[in-house]
């Protein structure tokens, strides 16, 4: 891991939760299993991927 995996996992999880809430608040999608569980899982995967790739910062 070249980036910050712990930060990626935690922030990805919370980001997914907030996106699920935002979609519900904007009346786009209700809080279904797919959004409430699926989006945080996608966020965690995204966090791990971003920290593994780490395209930003010093080389």
């Amino acid at each position: 891991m070249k980036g910050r995996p712990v930060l990626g996992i935690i922030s990805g999880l919370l980001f997914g939760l907030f996106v699920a809430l935002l979609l519900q608040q904007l009346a786009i999608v209700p809080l279904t299993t797919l959004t409430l569980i699926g989006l945080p899982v996608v966020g965690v995967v995204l966090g791990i991927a971003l920290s593994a790739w780490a395209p930003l910062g010093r080389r």
Partner: protein
Amino acid sequence: MRLIRHWKPLLFASALLTLMWIPAVAHASVTGGCTGSVVIDGTTYTPANDSAANPIVVPIDKSGVVATWEGSVPFANTNHHGSIGIVVGPWDINIADWGGANPDDTRSANGTYSLDEFKDQFPVAESLIPRGLYELSGTHTADGGTCNAHVMVKIEGNPLSSPLGIATVAGTVITGLTLLGSAFRKGTP
């Protein structure tokens, strides 16, 4: 091995596809032959108003709105019971239930319901009631059969007018930026 070498773009593509797929699978339905309708603020809603794009709209900011409803079941309705709840992820939070012997086998009912009464049920001020889209799940069982239903209800209003809406937008931005921070290489100040 070509696939393994390209795991990063594949991962991002699958995440994006998941996001795009979610609105398409949100749906609702009525089974068991039960029917019903409700008139809210001059608009008639039926079981056809069962999707995120076509929900039952509750004008929470208006006062004095009365919903006129009617419903019926196609089977023997003695010894009936039922409940309705809000779907929150894999859970149903029960908000109402009913039941009784119904010896006369009444199979239809109608009435009115004040939205002000609905608002009074919240333990917070009207402006703090969370806006947005909700999926309601209900069931009605009697001696003659069972009906299950899922409907979409939109509590109308600007989400940024409630503290939950503001907190949600702020949380999304902050956690999104933090997520981006995980993409910085270690040692980067």
